[in-house]
């Protein structure tokens, strides 16, 4: 009974959102006070119905209601409550449900925080509602989480996939989803702006805080995913150019360009076409991510194996959204021309150059994701596009973008300036960065141009902004705290990634029990191996005593687990974390002579990569809160 109530509330919410769409798009005077109040209230009711439906669903999961097929397939009585809840987003139907609830939540927050007198509000709410209707129909018609097994429900559930029983994974998808769907706000506003067709309306200022908040969630979500793949999946690195990582990276790149472009549009009404295009691109890429993961079109750890009907529905729906946006854009293009031309060497000029560079990056990733699919379709052969392709494209473009960023610090808004290359800040940073890079080159005997160029670009940014900070302290010059934090963390990220690729090493050793092997400065002794029986899995657990050159010793205990209910084998890595490096051990198979294959990695500065990414997210948080204080 309770499951039907939950199901019914979702259907009801769909109807109400459809009504909001009708009020805002088809009534002639959607801006009259009466209609706009109606829109606001109807939307809020729709949201509360949907939220209640979801909360009831969570409650069903907590109370092990296995008459719900989805819960029976993905949860188990033995799970702690935390994982019973997170099992909801461990597969397609439930995670789609969560995705939609988050989408409606952003709409709801916009609905209550933005004043009713805002001209674009009714149309914005209409666009959000119609997108919600499309996704709710997708959920209820093709992937219904409310399917039941009646009259005889199973006694126990099939358990959550063991690699998903992990705290990082319980929070990684929700954070990422909040980021993806958060871009519905700038998208809906720009569509409302295009529908309205009055180029004087300043829609950009309305969405700034919203866009940055969504960007923060996206940044943190991607970082969490990278961290999880490192320690739980045993991938041993921070980024693998896996198709699903890539479909999260593309909206992030587009969103980063969008936020910069938005800043220019707010400040000087320039780059408005870029801003609109990017707002459409960010949201389309978010939807494209959902399509890639949920259509079963690729094989990946993240992919939900699925029937092609879902893929077709999603593709059709995304197609409609994109075509309407593109149509409106083309229709209104001539009326939204920017007021003035961009001056050479002004801040705007650098931002628009970096927009183009980011566009190139997005296009390359898109190509990397789709090329294997096209190739397989045409020639029936599987190929994979891997790290060499992406490195060859990313390193030069990112270094170039970093150099433009470096020069943009000295530039002024709307004013072209004559660059003095021998001015103190520029020469100070260039000389220090050169010295640092040369030192690295000598000390580590590195010849790799891509590593050295990235280190140079990274330190250029860091030194330039440090100079800015010092300058602001002594001469009370105003600086943007978020811009400084975000760009310094970008520099830190570049340097950490370079050092990681310069210094990290790995090796597979075959090592017998009670013997010792040396690798780099480490002495690794194989102390013990045994089988442990646990409630839901058996595990082979090895113990290694590792000694580094300073004579410090520590134990590392990697495991291999076999889970009973699904028969899945997982590798549990053992990691020793220090400030500068991780020592990372996984065990493989036993050889005929009784020794074991052990994989050892020394990962330098890998924590710094995640730290700088989180710091970048923090910069966004600073921006959001400083904006709130002002208003």
């Amino acid at each position: 009974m309770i499951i039907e109530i939950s199901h019914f509330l979702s259907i009801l919410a769909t109807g109400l959102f459809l009504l909001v769409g009708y009020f805002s798009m088809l009534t002639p005077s959607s801006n009259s006070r009466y209609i706009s109040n109606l829109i606001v209230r109807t939307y809020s009711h729709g949201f509360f119905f949907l939220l209640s439906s979801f909360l009831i669903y969570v409650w069903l999961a907590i109370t092990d209601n296995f008459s719900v097929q989805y819960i029976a397939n993905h949860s188990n009585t033995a799970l702690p409550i935390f994982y019973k809840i997170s099992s909801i987003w461990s597969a397609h139907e439930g995670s789609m449900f969560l995705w939609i609830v988050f989408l409606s939540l952003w709409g709801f927050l916009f609905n209550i925080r933005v004043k009713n007198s805002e001209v674009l509000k009714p149309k914005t709410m209409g666009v959000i509602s119609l997108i919600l209707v499309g996704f709710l129909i997708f959920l209820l018609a093709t992937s219904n989480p409310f399917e039941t097994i009646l009259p005889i429900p199973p006694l126990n559930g099939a358990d959550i996939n063991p690699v998903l029983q992990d705290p990082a994974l319980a929070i990684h998808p929700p954070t990422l989803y909040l980021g993806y769907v958060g871009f519905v706000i700038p998208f809906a506003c720009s569509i409302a702006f295009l529908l309205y067709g009055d180029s004087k309306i300043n829609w950009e200022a309305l969405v700034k805080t919203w866009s940055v908040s969504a960007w923060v969630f996206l940044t943190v979500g991607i970082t969490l995913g990278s961290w999880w793949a490192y320690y739980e999946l045993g991938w041993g690195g921070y980024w693998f150019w896996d198709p699903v990582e890539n479909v999260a990276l593309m909206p992030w790149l587009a969103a980063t360009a969008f936020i910069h472009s938005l800043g220019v549009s707010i400040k000087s009404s320039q780059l408005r076409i870029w801003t609109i295009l990017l707002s459409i691109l960010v949201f389309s890429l978010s939807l494209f991510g959902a399509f890639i993961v949920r259509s079963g079109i690729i094989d990946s750890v993240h992919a939900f194996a699925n029937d092609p009907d879902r893929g077709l529905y999603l593709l059709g729906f995304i197609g409609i959204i994109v075509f309407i946006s593109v149509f409106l854009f083309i229709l209104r293009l001539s009326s939204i021309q920017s007021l003035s031309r961009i001056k050479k060497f002004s801040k705007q000029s650098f931002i628009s150059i970096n927009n183009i560079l980011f566009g190139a990056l997005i296009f390359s990733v898109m190509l990397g994701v789709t090329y294997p699919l096209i190739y397989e379709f045409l020639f029936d052969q599987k190929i994979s596009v891997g790290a060499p392709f992406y490195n060859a494209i990313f390193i030069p473009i990112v270094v170039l973008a970093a150099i433009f960023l470096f020069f943009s610090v000295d530039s002024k808004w709307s004013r072209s300036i004559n660059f003095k290359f021998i001015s103190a800040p520029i020469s100070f940073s260039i000389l220090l960065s050169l010295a640092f890079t040369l030192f690295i080159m000598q000390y580590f005997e590195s010849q790799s141009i891509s590593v050295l160029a990235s280190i140079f670009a990274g330190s250029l940014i860091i030194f330039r902004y440090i100079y800015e900070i010092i300058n602001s302290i002594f001469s009370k010059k105003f600086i943007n705290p978020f811009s400084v934090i975000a760009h310094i963390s970008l520099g830190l990220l570049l340097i950490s990634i370079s050092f990681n690729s310069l210094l990290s090493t790995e090796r597979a050793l075959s090592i017998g029990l009670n013997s010792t092997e040396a690798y780099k400065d480490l002495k690794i002794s194989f102390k013990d191996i045994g089988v442990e029986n646990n409630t839901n899995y058996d595990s082979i657990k090895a113990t290694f005593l590792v000694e580094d050159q300073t004579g410090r010793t520590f134990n590392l205990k990697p495991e291999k687990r076999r889970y009973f209910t699904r028969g899945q084998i997982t590798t549990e890595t053992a990691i020793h974390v220090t400030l500068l490096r991780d020592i990372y051990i996984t065990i493989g198979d036993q050889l005929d002579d009784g020794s074991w294959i052990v994989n050892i990695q020394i990962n330098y500065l890998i924590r710094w990569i995640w730290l700088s990414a989180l710091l970048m997210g923090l910069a966004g948080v600073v921006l959001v809160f400083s904006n709130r204080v002002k208003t």
Partner: protein
Amino acid sequence: MNLLLRLIVFTVPTTFILLFFMILTNEDTYPGADYDQFQVPEFELKVLDNSISVKSDFLNGDYVLNVWASWCVTCIIEHPYLTSLSKNGIPIIGLNYKDEQEDAIIWLKKYGNPYQTILHDYQGNLALDLGVTGAPETFLINDGKVIAHYQGEVNDQIWNDVFLPVIKDRKMF
């Protein structure tokens, strides 16, 4: 300039959407299916209901091998279809996977038995060697050789698109 921008903005998404439409509607896209061929691995397992041991040569013929378990929810959904296949004369051998013997027998009494014989793989060893990742999974065996494999529920569409072309090709059953 504006015309060029309009053209780009229109063509790029259109190309991608058409492309994905073509890929999606391409008949071969069943992510659970693969056609790697390999010999049925060595095994020695007991038959579920009468505890006779059988070895690998037991599968030296043409069969459908279906991996199932009483704890598997999708197996209940798949069950009526397997029963109809069995009634149409397709020989199906069950591989009962990581399941208690009593549970499996009660399950068969409740839903009916479409299998000629059921191998009881309590440890999951044969399943591991076959590359099973969960239940249900279905293998097509031709002369002791696996020639097609599908992960997930077999229904009319999967049977017709994934298995039937191979069966016709080899003139099996």
